[in-house]
């Protein structure tokens, strides 16, 4: 499908801007902006993962922060064991801690994916409001679990001594880290575009639009939903691993329900079921937060009503303003 000129201009413009951002802001003496941009991109990535199940699969998960937070904790816990020199597990095999990104980050994805598998197996049997609530409940369970894990900081959280080691990349350098995150986001977007257009993606979108009919056509819909749920969990886990490195700190607040709410806001604000929507949503939401909080301490007094207005009047989110006239399944 040929994209309209405006969309293409916005996409290329955004890409150029993102690539040129570090030298640009450093030139302006606003180094801190690299960190802000990295944070925006990490939230864009977790938004992309939620969008897969929410926007394309119609699954309203109100517990996505569980996977995000779990990924963050995996990195932090492995790092803690490494610095303390204590193995994570001694039986039946010895598993040592690690600070290597090559091990810790995939581990974060695997753990989050497994978590999504277990939660999905139970939650996906319900639908509608019950699904919203059961995903929320699982996230809360995990939240309270980490609060009570005093060995890993309990309520106070856990600090990382350093960012993960990633071969030739020096992640301690904000610019290196930024480009790595940007790479992940672009990769995820590319994969998602392919995925959504594939047989699997088509089945998923069919389920979103009319699950009953999909079953009548002969699709065992549960499996496809579960597969998407697990994939989204894995990517959220990776985002969590990145945020742990970005802030060099994790705490239970990474997986509380307000975090889940924010991720939902990012996806909806940007545009559900639109590949680039979550990126637009993350940029808008986090920048709005930055701007408003710089303007007044009581910025939430403004942000709250903005959300209500967005829901009431801006259906389809930011991306639909850019992509006007295109089908939502592009």
């Amino acid at each position, binding site marked *: 499908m040929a994209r309209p000129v405006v969309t293409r201009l916005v996409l290329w413009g955004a890409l150029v801007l993102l690539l040129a951002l570090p030298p640009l802001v450093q030139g302006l003496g606003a180094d801190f902006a690299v960190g802000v941009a990295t944070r925006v991109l990490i939230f864009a990535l977790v938004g992309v993962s939620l969008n897969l199940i929410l926007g394309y699969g119609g699954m309203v998960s109100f517990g996505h922060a569980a996977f995000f937070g779990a990924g963050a904790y995996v990195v932090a816990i492995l790092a803690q064991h490494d610095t303390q020199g204590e193995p994570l597990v001694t039986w039946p095999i010895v598993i040592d801690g690690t600070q290597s990104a090559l091990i810790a980050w995939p581990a974060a994805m695997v753990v989050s994916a497994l978590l999504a598998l277990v939660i999905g197996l139970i939650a996906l049997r319900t639908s509608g409001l019950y699904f919203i609530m059961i995903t929320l409940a699982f996230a809360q369970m995990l939240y309270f679990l980490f609060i009570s894990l005093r060995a890993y900081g309990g309520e106070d959280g856990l600090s990382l001594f350093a960012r993960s080691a990633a071969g030739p990349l020096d992640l301690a350098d904000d610019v290196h880290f930024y480009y790595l995150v940007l790479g992940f986001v672009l990769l995820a977007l590319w994969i998602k575009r392919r995925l959504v257009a*594939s*047989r699997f*993606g088509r089945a998923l979108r069919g389920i979103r639009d009319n699950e*009953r*009919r999909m079953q*009548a*056509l*002969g*699709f065992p819909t549960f499996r496809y939903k579960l597969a998407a749920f697990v994939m989204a969990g894995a990517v959220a886990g990776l985002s969590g691993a990145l945020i742990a490195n970005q802030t060099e700190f994790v705490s239970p607040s990474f997986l509380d329900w307000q975090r889940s709410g924010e991720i939902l806001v990012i996806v909806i604000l940007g545009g559900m079921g639109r590949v680039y929507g979550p990126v637009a949503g993350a940029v808008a939401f986090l920048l709005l937060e930055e701007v408003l909080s710089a303007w007044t301490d009581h910025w939430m007094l403004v942000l709250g009503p903005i959300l209500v207005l967005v829901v009431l009047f801006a259906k389809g989110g930011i991306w639909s303003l850019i992509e006007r006239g295109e089908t939502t399944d592009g």
Partner: protein
Amino acid sequence: MADPLLEIEGLSKAFGAVVACDAVTLSLREGEVHAMIGPNGAGKTTLLGQLTGEIRPDAGRIRFAGEDVTGLPEHARAGRGLARSFQVTSLFSRFTALDNVALAVQAQAGHSFRFWRPAARETALVAPARAALARVGLAERADVPAAALAHGEQRQLEIAMALASGPRLLLLDEPTAGMGHEDSGRMIALLSALKAEGRMTILLIEHDMDVVFALADRITVLVYGQTIATGVPEEIRANSEVRRAYLGEEAAA
């Protein structure tokens, strides 16, 4: 005579105190068009729901192609060649006509755990889908989103989706409901053509007597969840009980 393709035995279903389906027994021969008629609320749609597996019967058995399918879930029945069209048009409204049918093809093409190749470029999906669209006369409208099709065209698309799965038994729930004269004439012509091909068995649930008498080999009359008669159209026309109960007292007056 060959074994029946579909055998229903003593199928019953009640919703609260309302008995929608009361020990219905029925068998469909391979290759016939069998019409099921009866007033609204006679239990036709409930019967259909039990055949597709969407509603669990309280009692009774359903055998399809020699196999007991009573306990099978909906998708497994569809996989065995039982396809249905919906009474209320139930399409994927954001998908194009072609993609709607391609989805039906995909359902029958084994699992959909293929994550990388764009489905829109897979000939294995697109070619049969185009063929099915052509069969129902919608070839020209392939790229129009389903929501933008006219009502009659949406019903044609429903049929195309059912055909695309290459079914052995096609369950048609009021295919001409809400259609004008012209559209329903086109639908009758389409269904006659399918019947002439002789590759499919059709169970037709219909209100419109014109459609029923134009297409059916045999007719079953369902009233208050019970079958009160089964026979060829002439027998049904002549059956006084049927005239009284369904065609209405007024017809006998």
